[in-house]
């Protein structure tokens, strides 16, 4: 059974009497351990898809099963709990809390999960080691470079051992070199077993993932799995150097 199953999911907004179908009857399966990218131009509905997959939003129609649980009609309180336990987020602008240091930022999801302070600290340090940021634990976000902030944000996304991590344009605010190291980090994490979904408008970034889901006008335009197609032997990080 897939980790996430979308069946006939639609999200419809009403703006000034006009109906806007941000998502139109989407079917999608994501399996555990997959490394995927969701790609599409702005306004295509990819953000809406990510919000719905990430339990930040509920669909107008359709059913979503996350880890076997139906969440399309869950209450906001249940959604908050699912976000806390099963989902990690990485944002374009890092979104670390400036008043807290790196360790406290990483601990934050565990605070809401109700962990004791010792366990919080241990697991947060573990997550920081995973992204090689354990030596910056006491720094404030503002004292770090963009790449370091994004690593800390990734540690925060991982600290709850989520079923899936969503990264929304994670390299969008970084220079290309730093962006590459972040993508490499995602790939390493994927190899260690994390399920990761990159959301991007950039085909070059999407190229690093084995599976690409392209969204256009609220519908899945392409759903290419390189492994199944046998087109790709391994990931390529060098941007612009992709197999034809």
């Amino acid at each position, binding site marked *: 059974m897939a980790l996430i199953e979308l069946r006939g999911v639609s999200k419809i907004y009403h703006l000034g009497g006009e109906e806007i179908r941000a998502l139109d009857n989407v079917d999608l399966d994501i399996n555990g351990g997959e490394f995927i990218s969701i790609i599409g131009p702005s306004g295509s509905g990819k953000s809406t898809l990510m*919000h719905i997959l*990430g339990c930040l939003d509920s669909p107008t129609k359709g059913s979503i099963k996350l880890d076997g649980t139906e969440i399309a009609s869950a209450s906001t309180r249940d959604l*908050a709990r699912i976000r806390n*336990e099963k989902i990690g987020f990485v944002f374009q602008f890092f*979104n670390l*809390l400036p*008043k807290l240091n790196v360790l406290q930022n990483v601990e934050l999801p565990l605070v*809401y999960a109700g962990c004791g302070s010792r366990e919080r600290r241990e697991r947060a340090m573990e997550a920081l080691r995973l992204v090689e940021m354990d030596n910056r634990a006491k720094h404030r976000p503002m004292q770090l470079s963009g790449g370091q902030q994004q690593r800390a944000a990734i540690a*925060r996304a991982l600290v709850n051992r989520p079923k899936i991590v969503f990264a929304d344009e994670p390299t969008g605010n970084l220079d290309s070199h730093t962006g590459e190291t972040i993508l490499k980090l995602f790939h390493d994490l994927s190899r260690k077993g994390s399920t990761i979904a990159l959301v991007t408008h950039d085909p070059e970034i999407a190229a690093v993932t084995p599976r690409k889901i392209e969204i256009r006008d609220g519908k899945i335009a392409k759903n290419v799995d390189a492994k199944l197609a046998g087109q790709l032997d391994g990931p390529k990080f060098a941007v612009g150097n992709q197999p034809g």
Partner: protein
Amino acid sequence: MHLINAILVGLKEIWANKFRSMLTMLGIILGVSSLVAMSALVKGMENGMKEALIAIGGLEKVRVEEQDIPVWQQHLADQAVGTTMNDVHALIRSAPLITMVVPEMRTRNITMTRGGKSISPWNFIGTWPNAVELNQHVVAHGRMFNALDDENARNVCVIGTAVRDALFGSPEQIGREVIPVGEFVNINNQRFKIIGMFEHYESDQDKKRRELQTAKPPEPKGTGPERSRGYGSMGSKGGSRSMGGFVFDLKNNSVYIPLNTMWLRFRAASGTSGTGTGGFGGRSSSGSSSGSGSTAEFVPDPRLSTLSVKIADIDKMDEALQQAKNVMLHTHKGIEDFSFRTQENWSEGITQAISNARMSGGIIAAISLLVGGIGIMNIMLASITERVREIGIRKAIGATFFDVFTQILVESVVIAILGGVAGLFTSNMLVKLLIILSPTENTPVITVESMFLAFAFSVAVGILAGLFPALKAAKLNPIQALRYE
């Protein structure tokens, strides 16, 4: 999220915005301290008034006073006898609800002299020995005159300290306390022996001030000739006097002599005729209706100035007064030329004044606390607007509605609690400042209840002020909050 965690987060947030939080807290600090200070002032006032009430004899004391004859009895006016010793004996015999009857005969235009000094005491009273008990006097030196002194109409007197101060010098003036028991004075040129002196009556506040002053060396006198500053500047103490303080002055400025002495030396003997001696007690005179002073009269006036009674049980006040009225109507031949004055009026006045003061002061202080609360709400609203993104992040990583709600509410309550605690400390200083700025006769008393109440009120204000901002923050949509710039 645990509550302790939430409180820690709240404290951190307050610490991060120290100046802003301080300003916000200031509203609560002022509200709490003014509430406590206000109630301390009222409490002090209440204490002072209660002290004064006890000093004038408590609620059990009832005075029988002369009253204008009612209109429907005007035709009997020339038969009205006034209050006399007949009433005293009748009440003792026939009114069991009255435990004590004290006749008083006063005379004005009295001058006491000794050496070159003189005084006209405010209260020059001929009475029975039990007046000491009824009027809550304490004989500190010597003794009160007894029944024998009264029966023999001896020329003895018991004086208050103000009289002593005037005739012998006050302790403040001559540096030691004169106890003039055994000395002789002239009262309207008749030789009287002082056999006792009452203690010095004063309010607690005056007592404290006096003790403070004796501890300090005497201050040099101001320049210019000594002068009296007129009414209200009696005694060596400066500062303003209250109604309560006046009661004590009045008590100190008293001279008691036996009733029979008063009758023989100052009433019956004072007229040019000098007639009508002795045995007035059992006589029912037709009485002259003109003034009751020691002015020249051919027939001495046997009427009592006042008749004070003590009733057995304060709960049976009405029954006791009815009984006394029945008895006295009998001795007064049915003419109602007397009335009863209880201290209930004053007592009720005190209660009324206190509750008025408490109410108005409480409302003003509560309003200032409310303004403090509005300040908190305002700052919390500004704070959540600043932190929309933070709230979005927190929600994205799993904070529930309740988590965010508690966080904001706790911040608001923590500000209120810190402000409340600081306000309690400030109130202490505020009260001290008030004492310095206006040396009132009544020491403000900070009560534990008022502190507790003010603190509880500040916490309640913190909760109320936090509710709306907390609700607003908790209802934020995480997606929109994350997009917020």
